[in-house]
């Protein structure tokens, strides 16, 4: 097991280098960051040249990348367009997005699994058909549509919650955005749970559990659910990374100053340090989440052994 973890951690290095370079290259290809810095005004040529030198913009792409990487390893992620250190932006943005993601995951787990279990045990009944239809709708409507609609209904019309989240982003205000962020994944969790339960209800070991004279509750919880939730748990695990990255849309809708907001600003201003820095951290989160999911999988299913 230990060796497996080390091997996986080592495998992250090339993935890390490759993905950061790719992002670096894409931002580089976006255009002239100095021009973007000044917006519509034409910059004073002397100042522009000075900034270029400071940012090593005259060097080749490869050299720029190396300089950037060297700085990263000393904890210097560069400066954002507004002069703040990227690290300080991260310090304020990541906690907000993590909180938003956690709210979303809780919705996924609680509502998604509950609906999946209910529909899985009552296949073909009206509840099942109804929920299935609903998940189809949720999956096929884009998040920004559901987001704006729910924001309008609950934030503007009913005034149950603030339509725009304050900079400190307390959990109470993140409930609606969290739900919006979770919706599509929640629908997938529902369907996955339903399918898994449906498959496992016919499994031999469930029949054995009934033949042992166990009460129905115990058959369902200890035998059926324990097995059916293995794929669901791993899906939710891998989804955490995707949720954090996908928060961009939700954060825009509800004006949340999280990772998505900063990334958006960074792209708007062609600010390579912000974009590359944030995406690099997201890549790391994604890789580590994946590793944890694989390890969790081995804990949940004793048949899986890593060597």
């Amino acid at each position, binding site marked *: 097991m230990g060796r497996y973890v080390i091997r996986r951690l080592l495998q992250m290095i090339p993935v890390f280098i490759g993905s950061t370079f790719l992002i670096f290259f894409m931002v580089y290809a976006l255009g002239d960051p100095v021009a973007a810095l000044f917006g519509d005004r034409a910059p004073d040529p002397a100042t522009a040249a000075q900034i270029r030198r400071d940012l090593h913009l005259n060097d080749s792409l490869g050299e720029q990348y190396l300089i950037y990487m060297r700085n990263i390893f000393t904890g210097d992620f560069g400066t954002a367009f507004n002069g703040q250190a990227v690290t300080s932006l991260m310090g304020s943005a990541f906690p907000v997005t993590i909180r938003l993601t956690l709210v979303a995951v809780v919705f996924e787990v609680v509502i998604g699994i509950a609906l999946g279990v209910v529909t899985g045990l009552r296949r073909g009944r009206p509840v099942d058909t109804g929920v299935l239809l609903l998940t189809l709708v949720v999956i096929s409507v884009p998040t920004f549509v559901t987001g704006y609609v729910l924001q309008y209904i609950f934030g503007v019309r009913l005034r149950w919650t603030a339509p725009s989240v304050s900079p400190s982003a307390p959990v109470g205000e993140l409930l609606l955005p969290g739900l919006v962020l979770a919706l599509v994944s929640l629908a997938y969790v529902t369907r996955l749970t339903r399918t898994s339960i449906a498959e496992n209800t016919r*499994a031999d*070991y469930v*029949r054995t*559990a009934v*033949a*042992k004279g166990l009460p129905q509750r115990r058959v369902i919880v200890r035998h059926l659910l*324990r097995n059916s939730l293995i794929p669901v748990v791993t899906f939710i695990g891998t989804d955490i990374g995707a949720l954090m990255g996908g928060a961009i849309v939700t954060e825009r809708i509800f004006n949340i100053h999280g990772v998505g907001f900063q990334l958006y600003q960074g792209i708007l201003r062609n600010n390579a340090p912000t974009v590359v820095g944030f995406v690099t951290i997201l890549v790391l989160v994604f890789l580590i989440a994946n590793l944890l999911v694989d390890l969790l999988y081995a804990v949940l299913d004793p*048949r899986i052994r890593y060597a």
Partner: protein
Amino acid sequence: MATSPDLVPTPAQTPADPLLDVRDLHVEFRTRDGVAKAVNGVNYTVHAGETLAVLGESGSGKSVTAQAIMGILDTPPGFVTRGQVLFQGRDLLTMSAEERRKVRGARIAMIFQDALSALNPVLTVGEQLGEMFRVHRGASRKEARAKAIELMDRVRIPAARDRVRDYPHQFSGGMRQRVMIAMAMALEPDLIIADEPTTALDVTVQAQVMDLLAELQREFTMGLILITHDLGVVADVADKIAVMYAGRIVETAPVHDIYRAPAHPYTRGLLRSIPRLDRKGRELYAIKGLPPSLLHIPPGCPFHPRCAQARGRELCRSDLPALLPVVGGRASACHFWKETLGDDNAAADRAGA
């Protein structure tokens, strides 16, 4: 439809009431393609300490009958539409769900064919064995574990104390089936239903597992219903045989009589289709044709399209033969059983008597 009442005679050596008395059991599966009549009036009895072997081709309803007795039918699509399952005199089919649950596992236990899929892959065998004591006896976690180890010792799994923490996939096929047997034995039930308990095993361990089962059955004088395709095993351990065809019992008999002289053409076909040492070198016989679709069971005798003895006789095509007593504590569901018995050998004399 003509169905026989319980006329299957009980062997003379056990005068007591039967442990299990299945009467006129009907099970159907209501599927999209139609109603599959899987069990169509099964009658059989099992006494304490007795082994009943159930034989028959694939799809003849052996497992479904067992599931109906256990109360583990897939419902829907499966439904018991008629009949009684008297266990120690009480009809299981009319009991409340809770009463029935208490019988399952504790008084009647079942051993399944494939222990790998029948055991829960994510729970240790100790947890799965101990669960019997925790649920039915209210044992503590610790007591349950001790009992689990004791059970594993009893079915002779080596190093039970360590292996109790292992998962099913960590055992060999034979050991896994021992775990299944241990689980069935846990609460010392009165009746065990073993559905092809050795079919999934290597030939080399089949005999060991079967011996263990037979030994435990003797030790605890349990009734045993043994569903199997292995006629060699049947000859060794069974007291009597019930042969099933298209959801019916077509013949019941004490074990040795049936080998000597079957009283139903289908039984004869089955016996001829097994390899035998004394007929080495001869080509194996196979019953021609296929079992009927359970959606459309032929009228009259369900076996008539395949029966060599029917020879186009009108009676075979029009009338369903009831399972009626013939000779020597046997019963056959063939209009022309005398002919069948006579065909085979000297038993004809007795048959004629």
